[in-house]
């Protein structure tokens, strides 16, 4: 009898978990099909980049990308509660747009010729540059200073390749999976500098825990024109987003968003870029 009970119990557990997962499946279906006129708009952002796109402890989102995305959504006719933010990791961005998982992506998405073949871009809405984040008292002031120094970046990022190929081939490069890990290494002294876009670095440097400890080297090692990714061929949306971006700059909300998100990190932002004009 006891034996039966154990078997029955395990069968029940299996059945329950099956049922639970079945429900989960249904859930996913209904939400992913809602990208059309169902009232909600899905927007791709990053979840782990302070200053640009960050998931806050209360479940809300904050950062410059988030502000831009929200403003654009408003101009497209969506109310704040109709916006659904979705995490789009760097490697997934093209795929998510092509499949229509999200309507547009605002996630430190640099406009490049290679990407333009797969997606369309609105904007640019911000001009960033590859830069270095160093400790406040660091003597590193130009790219070649990095030779022989410990440098940190994210595995496979273009910034890392840039340094290795052109800027400082003799730099000792540590590659990790996210920038927050680089910053922790910078704080402990394991690395001398962190490299990626200045906007991302500024975001980390303005976090409470790091305030006043780091500085940007102020090098313009590259030009990154952040655009808003849209599904290839959806020119109507591109036009609408471009109009929204123009309005965001002209009514002052753009500058306000820059100041609010990057302010504490002595980050000298470039003026708002002209729509459709890339700085090479």
């Amino acid at each position, binding site marked *: *009898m006891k034996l039966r009970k*154990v078997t029955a119990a395990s069968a029940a557990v299996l059945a329950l978990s099956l049922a639970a*997962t079945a429900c989960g499946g249904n859930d*996913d279906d209904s939400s992913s099909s809602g990208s059309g006129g169902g009232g909600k708009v899905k927007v791709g952002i990053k*979840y782990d*980049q302070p200053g640009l796109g960050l998931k806050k402890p209360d*479940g809300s989102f904050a950062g410059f990308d988030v502000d831009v995305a929200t403003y654009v959504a408003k101009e497209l006719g969506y109310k704040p509660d109709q916006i659904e933010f979705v995490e789009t990791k760097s490697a997934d961005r093209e795929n998510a747009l092509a*499949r229509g*998982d999200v309507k547009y992506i605002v996630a430190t998405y640099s406009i490049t010729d290679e990407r333009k073949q797969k997606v369309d871009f609105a904007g640019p809405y911000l001009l960033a540059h590859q830069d270095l984040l160093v400790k406040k008292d660091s003597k590193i002031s130009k790219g070649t200073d990095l030779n022989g120094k410990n440098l940190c970046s994210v595995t496979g990022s273009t910034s890392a390749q840039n340094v290795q190929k052109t800027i400082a081939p003799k730099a000792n490069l540590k590659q990790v999976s*996210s920038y927050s890990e680089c910053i922790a290494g910078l704080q402990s002294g394991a690395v001398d500098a962190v490299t990626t876009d200045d906007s991302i670095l500024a975001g980390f440097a303005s976090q409470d825990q790091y305030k006043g400890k780091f500085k940007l080297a102020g090098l313009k090692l590259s030009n990154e024109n952040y655009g808003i990714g849209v599904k290839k061929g959806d020119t109507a949306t591109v036009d609408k987003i471009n109009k929204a971006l123009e309005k965001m700059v002209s009514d002052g909300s753009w500058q306000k968003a820059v100041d609010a998100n990057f302010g504490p990190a002595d980050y000298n932002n470039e003026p708002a870029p002209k729509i459709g004009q890339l700085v090479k």
Partner: protein
Amino acid sequence: MSSVLYDTPGPRAKRRNVVLSVVFFVLLVLLLWWIYRTMDDKNQLTSALWKPFTESEAWTTYLLPGLANTLKAAALAMVIGLPLGAVFGIARLSDHRWVRAVSGTVVEFFRAIPVLLLMLFANEFYSRSTNVGSADRPLYAVVTGLVLYNAAVLAEVVRAGILSLPKGQTEAAYAIGLRKGQTMSSILLPQAVTAMLPAIVSQLVVIVKDTALGGVMIGFTELLNARGTLAANYANVIPSFIVVAAMYIVLNFILTSFASWLERYLRRSKRSTGAVLGAEDMEELNPAAVGGTFGTGAGGGFGSGTGV
């Protein structure tokens, strides 16, 4: 644990043991002191880094959803992998040589490949050849990788479970006129499943641990991945690692304890045939080196294991 390896200590041995204990204790304390000092030096002990874990938001926004995904992937992998494993396990016991050969090859192949390769491959496959949404794809890829690998392992578990039953069960079934299929489905399998339960729960530990690979390598938002989002917010890389490691330990400790309780329960149970596949047997079956029994091994598979 009075052992046959040494006599009950006399005065000299007692003295030596005390000296050894003290030396070992001092070494341990030095190690802990060094850890404490370094963490303090590097400001890893400041309350700002640890305080988030005392607040509910860090848990409800990051860690618990991550843990839920870990459990979801593990449960799915087990629920899909077990029947699949059963099919292959039974096929390996088939009377037909070619069925045995095919199923044996498939099982051995998937047992020989790292689960990470299976996940990476599945991830790319779903991305290129199917229209699985990019939000769901990591989960699909992780579960696919886990299912392929664990079905192969569970096939061996099922086979061992069936083989562990006394021969008389099959003979009695044939004697009352049951056919092969009937014998398998109504006599052998039900008993084997019961015998296998502890082994299956132990395998869950392996699956839970392997989900973490998907978090780092293909961006599945399980517990370890959620740690990254949390650390980006609170800037506490090291404390978050320690907390997440502790969560894994507690979760897997519960699972292993449950497995060894099940094993003891089934061994004691009078109505069973006494055939139980414990965690120790699993370590032989599963090269992924199973989580295993907690504490001292419950005298499992090995012959003359009279407690040394």
